[in-house]
């Protein structure tokens, strides 16, 4: 019976359309028939293939409660998810006996528990190798010392491995990854924690040097480890000394040593041409020792050239042609970093003199190619945002688009860096667009980029408002205000005030004024909850004036009266234009009299004129006339109320009032 009931209900809804029309023809408006083009289905399908600009980042759950709305929330949620993962890994690694059962076919090594502690306890070379593999620097060094004391000889390979380990980690144990950190947090020049402030420096006579000196015979590999460690941790002069040592022992260096020395060359000499001479010297020696340069060599040369100032440009062109000649560009999938460093030599951000042609050439070369990060600095240099900065400085929109298209090729999105660098990149891109492009294009990009890719800061929103103003699309402001609230920028008083002033400035059509008035009331409620909210917005004269103007323009006279009361309570004085506008809108004589009284209470100089106008324009009863005349004669209130007033003009009036009161 239940089933029958529900079926009847459904059937009632499914009556044919014609019945409904005949029943209530005047209530229903039949919509116009929509025509679809032939490719509509294909276009709809194609729109689903690329990134969805209405969704949040892929790592978040698809739910409105769990989607981040500001950049702070983005970081918080992503880091908390990451820390959950690390907590689980910790549990897996500390209780391996529950996770040993392996029923994956084929075996998945990354899902097995990892051994973090060394198992082999006795003093032997196998134990040493195990500790090296687990990256336990101190334990490995201790094991080596124990082995030497016990008298066993350690093989050269093992010793070389040990030296590699120590030089890689600078004789400190690497931080175990039990704290959630994404690698991009170590941004250039901004240490986050105290640990970062304590940089690892190559100490005198540390373990690496000690073990090195203990070696009976030192080969290229040992020297290589030592020199690279020294260069990595800042002992550049020592590195060169060790190199000369090596040459004295008649050993040939390998390509890694030369790469390290080239990158150290800029630190060792002072003047630009000395630096370049040293690099040339090293390259010559490389040639003599028959060592083939590789990709990283040229990158090191280019990076060193960046420090060489004006000498750099000719040499870097030369270097690039050498690279091409050697065919590194072709087979190596030339690393992105080299291009970027090249650009940065030519277009240093501080002094750009229209070097855009170099930029164009590089972009043509780079267009349509997918890069594989090879150089360790590829991500760190945040190449993309650097390019964007260049485009911003030169106001070159076309290049900006080409750079952005490059991002969509293949694997290049990996080179964009972490979320902070991404936000800088997209922020600059959006800034450029707001400055240079027509408003429709700007709005299209706005819908595409925000909020799925980045969350603009208040400056970005101001740029957008500016662009709207330039192209006369101020009717979009209420929507933008909704976005501002969602992003949490509604506590930035300068942004809010600019918004209000833009709305209050001109006259618009009635619907637009209505929407502005609704927006203004929303803003007012924000100001009002000042004590309750965490970051309070303070009332200022400008904001109050603007809100009142907007409300008046939309014929919301009652709310405008409330605003006047707020003026009183916050001890701010409304301007005369505002009072005049009020007068224009008021229809009722009683209200006009009240207006004049209010104006008198603020000690505005135009009060007598106002009174005159009211007398002329409005129908007033005798009592009202009397009130009016008495009000206009007494220009000011008592002195204690007056002293609290905040008046922008008024020195003469103020003096007059004081004189009047004294009398």
């Amino acid at each position, binding site marked *: 019976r239940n089933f029958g009931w529900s079926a009847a209900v459904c059937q009632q809804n499914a009556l044919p359309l014609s019945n409904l029309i005949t029943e209530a023809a005047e209530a229903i408006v039949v919509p116009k028939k929509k025509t679809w083009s032939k490719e509509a289905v294909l276009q709809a399908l194609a729109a689903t293939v690329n990134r969805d600009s209405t969704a949040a980042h892929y790592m978040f759950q698809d739910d409105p409660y769990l989607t981040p709305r500001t950049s702070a929330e983005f970081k918080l949620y992503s880091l908390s998810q990451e*820390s*959950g993962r690390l907590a689980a890994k910790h549990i897996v690694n500390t209780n391996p006996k529950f996770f040993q059962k392996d029923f994956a076919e084929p075996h998945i090594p990354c899902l097995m528990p990892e051994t973090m502690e060394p198992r082999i306890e006795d003093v032997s070379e196998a134990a040493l190798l195990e500790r090296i593999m687990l990256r336990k620097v101190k334990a490995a060094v201790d094991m080596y010392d124990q082995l030497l004391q016990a008298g066993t000889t350690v093989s050269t390979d093992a010793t070389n491995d040990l030296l590699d380990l120590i030089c890689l980690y600078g004789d400190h144990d690497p931080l175990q990854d039990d704290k959630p950190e994404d690698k991009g947090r170590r941004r250039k020049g901004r240490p986050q924690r105290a640990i970062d402030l304590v940089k690892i420096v190559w100490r005198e006579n540390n373990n690496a040097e000690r073990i090195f000196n203990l070696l009976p015979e030192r080969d290229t590999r040992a020297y290589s480890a030592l020199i690279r460690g020294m260069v990595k941790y800042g002992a550049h002069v020592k590195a060169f000394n060790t190199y000369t040592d090596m040459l004295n022992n008649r050993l040939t260096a390998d390509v890694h040593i030369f790469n390290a020395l080239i990158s150290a060359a800029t630190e060792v000499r002072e003047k630009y041409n000395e630096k370049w001479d040293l690099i040339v010297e090293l390259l010559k020696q490389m040639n003599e020792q028959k060592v083939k340069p590789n990709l990283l060599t040229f990158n090191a040369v280019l990076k060193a050239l960046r420090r060489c100032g004006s000498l750099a440009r000719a040499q870097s062109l030369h270097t690039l042609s050498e690279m091409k000649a050697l065919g590194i560009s072709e087979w190596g999938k030339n690393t992105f970093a080299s291009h970027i460093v090249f650009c940065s030599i030519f277009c240093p951000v501080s002094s750009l003199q229209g070097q855009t042609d170099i930029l164009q050439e590089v972009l043509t070369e780079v267009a349509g190619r997918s890069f594989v990060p090879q150089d360790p600095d590829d991500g760190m240099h945040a190449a993309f945002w650097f390019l964007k900065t260049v485009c911003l400085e030169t106001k070159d929109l076309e290049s900006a688009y080409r750079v952005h298209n490059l991002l969509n090729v293949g694997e290049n999105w990996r080179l964009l860096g972490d979320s902070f660098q991404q936000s800088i990149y997209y922020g600059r891109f959006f800034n450029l667009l707001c400055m240079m492009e027509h408003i429709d294009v700007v709005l299209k990009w706005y819908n595409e980029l925000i909020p799925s890719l980045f969350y603009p800061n208040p400056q970005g929103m101001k740029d957008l408002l500016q662009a709207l103003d330039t192209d006369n699309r101020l009717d979009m402001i209420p929507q933008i205000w909704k976005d501002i609230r969602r992003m949490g920028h509604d506590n930035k008083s300068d942004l809010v005030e600019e918004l209000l002033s833009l709305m209050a400035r001109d006259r618009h059509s009635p619907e637009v004024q209505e929407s502005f008035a609704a927006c203004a009331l929303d803003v007012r409620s924000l100001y009002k909850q000042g004590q309750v909210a965490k970051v309070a917005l303070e009332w200022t004269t400008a904001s109050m004036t603007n809100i009142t103007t907007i409300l008046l323009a939309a014929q919301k006279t009652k709310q405008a009266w409330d605003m006047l009361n707020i003026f009183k309570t916050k001890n701010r004085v409304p301007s005369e234009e505002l009072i005049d506008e009020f007068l224009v809108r008021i229809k009722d004589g009683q209200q006009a009299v009240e207006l004049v009284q209010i104006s008198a209470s603020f000690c505005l100089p135009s009060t007598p004129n106002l009174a005159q106008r009211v007398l002329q324009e409005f129908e007033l009863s005798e009592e009202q006339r009397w009130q009016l005349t008495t009000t206009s004669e007494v220009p000011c209130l008592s002195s204690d109320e007056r002293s609290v007033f905040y008046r922008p003009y008024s020195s003469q009036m103020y003096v007059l009032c004081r004189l009047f009161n004294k009398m």
Partner: protein
Amino acid sequence: MNTLARVGTSICTNPETRALHVTASCCKNRAARIRVGKGDRPLTYEQALHPHHIGHRKGWLSQHTSNLMGENGAADRTVEDVFVRRFIFGTFHNCLANEIVIKRRGNMLVVCALMLQRLPPQKFYFLIGYTETLLSHFYKCPVKMEVQTLGDKAVYKYL
């Protein structure tokens, strides 16, 4: 047999004897059924419909292919399901709005859960990351969670 018949008849006809009638017991089906009560107990749709409605008005809470003809491993999948349900019930303490749905697609285990908005979102994400990783390591297959949140439980009726 004759004596039995005589005994039976004698008990029937003799008015001073009493007999015990015994039949095979047929107990009422109590599986996954919440009985009618005072009317103040809220029930979700899942709880309100009885198991014989599965396939007609209800869906399945666990989807895998091992119950098809010729496929193995149904028991293993069931045990895994039970473990996963208890694990999630305990991890997201007091936050589940309804039973979780477990789907197996290829190698992956997808846990679809309906949660209440009792925790701030960052705590949800911590627990989601933790669950995904721990279950992946336990079952040696990728485990993904798809979570939707509600304000309160969706009540279908009161019993």
